């Protein structure tokens, strides 16, 4: 399959890239890893007059802890994230997530920023970043701005990014002691989108009760699903089977999956609950809670 014709641009600075996006506005798309964009163009489900490749801009691939945050460059490849010792030791939820995105070959091209900026509810990083309370940095013609991740996903394939903005960094607050997170995904086979998946990040207090919890679901609604009621239920309680079970039930109840080849609405909601139980349980375990 051949995509419809477009012009390709390979700017070497962010400023140049933003200028190209401003110039071509809605007919331009940012090319990061291209593992979602190029299939869309090939299948002609999408069209672009101009592709602005940010792959030739130096300095957008990094993973570092700085200023109380884990900072991930927008163009960092999933395979780099997956093999990072820092991430493996301190943010295992990100390893859980990266390892179930598409397949290892795709992950050699696909980028963390692209996974978020694409706004696909089937993508795996969005729920994890919500659980972690992340922020993203967007650079546009007026400079950069920071967007809270829970204000980032607006709808199906819609994000808070303007057409002339580029996602350049993801910032994750370094979790305090006695924190843990996990991501569980039910998929039919390697490379599939989730039937349902859940991300959980928990911090325990000195008494063993839950001090903070972030919980979000993948692919059971037009955007990642979060439930204030579920998080409120668990906060301040001991994370035992009863409280975890109820929080998982509440977040699954807030989902709105659609029936397709991966299953019926009821099945997906039930699988979302099961994934939430597993993610919460593992998160507590990693937080040292049992």
């Amino acid at each position, binding site marked *: 399959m051949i995509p419809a*014709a477009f012009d390709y641009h390979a700017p070497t600075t962010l400023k140049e890239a933003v200028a190209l996006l401003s110039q071509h506005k809605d007919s331009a798309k940012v090319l990061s890893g291209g593992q979602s964009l190029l299939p869309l163009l090939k299948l002609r489900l999408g069209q672009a007059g101009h592709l602005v490749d940010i792959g030739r801009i130096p300095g957008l691939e990094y993973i570092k802890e700085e200023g109380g945050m884990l900072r991930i460059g927008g163009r960092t490849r999933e395979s780099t994230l997956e093999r990072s010792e820092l991430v493996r030791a301190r943010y295992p939820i990100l390893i859980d997530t990266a390892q179930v995105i598409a397949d290892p070959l795709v992950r050699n091209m696909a980028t963390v920023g692209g996974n978020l900026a694409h706004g696909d509810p089937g993508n795996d990083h969005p729920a994890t970043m919500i659980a972690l309370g992340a922020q993203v940095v967007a650079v546009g013609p007026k400079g950069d701005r920071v967007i809270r991740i829970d204000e980032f996903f607006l709808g199906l394939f819609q994000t808070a990014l303007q057409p002339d903005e580029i996602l350049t960094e993801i910032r994750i607050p370094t979790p305090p002691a006695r924190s843990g997170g996990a991501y569980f995904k039910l998929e039919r086979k390697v490379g599939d989108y989730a039937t349902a998946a859940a991300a959980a990040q928990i911090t325990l207090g000195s008494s063993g009760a839950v001090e903070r919890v972030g919980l979000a679901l993948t692919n059971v609604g037009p955007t990642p699903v979060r439930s204030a009621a579920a998080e409120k239920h668990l906060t301040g309680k001991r994370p035992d089977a009863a409280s975890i079970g109820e929080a998982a039930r509440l977040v699954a109840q807030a989902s709105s999956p659609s029936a397709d080849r991966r299953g019926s609405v009821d099945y997906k909601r039930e699988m979302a609950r099961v994934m939430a139980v597993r993610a919460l349980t593992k998160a507590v375990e990693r937080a040292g809670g049992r």
Partner: protein
Amino acid sequence: MATHKIRVTVNGAAREAEVESRLLLVHLLREEFRLTGTHIGCDTTHCGACTVLLDGQPVKSCTVLAVQADGRQVETVEGLEKDGKLHPIQEGFWQEHGLQCGYCTPGMMMTSCALLARNANPSEAEIREAISGNLCRCTGYLNIVKAVQYAANKQKEGAHVAA
């Protein structure tokens, strides 16, 4: 629409081409450079038949633009054999009968080469994980895993002799 003049190092040799923006890497290799060892399978980023190494990393060349390879190194199955001698991974697929129809084989071998380059002694689980983006509909993967293990052992012996 403008075309782009690109330079790509393919299997160690500098190549040049004038390409449309939308030309895919797999088409550049097969149709411009006549390297038809790289296969087109699903053409939808699933099967891995088109796997080549881009700067040493296995990628699906149906999902990379030719122009993205400008200034970079590409290795294809044609580059595995050196001076009439099969690469250990090729020998492994032959000795262990790691194929039936052969359609997935070039991609399987490129992925396996990259695995062995970063992990000389992979476990069976690591081999299976590494090739999980390459689909084979004939073999059930058992002999493919054995072929990769054969190559790993062969390379270790080679390293030992060289030392």
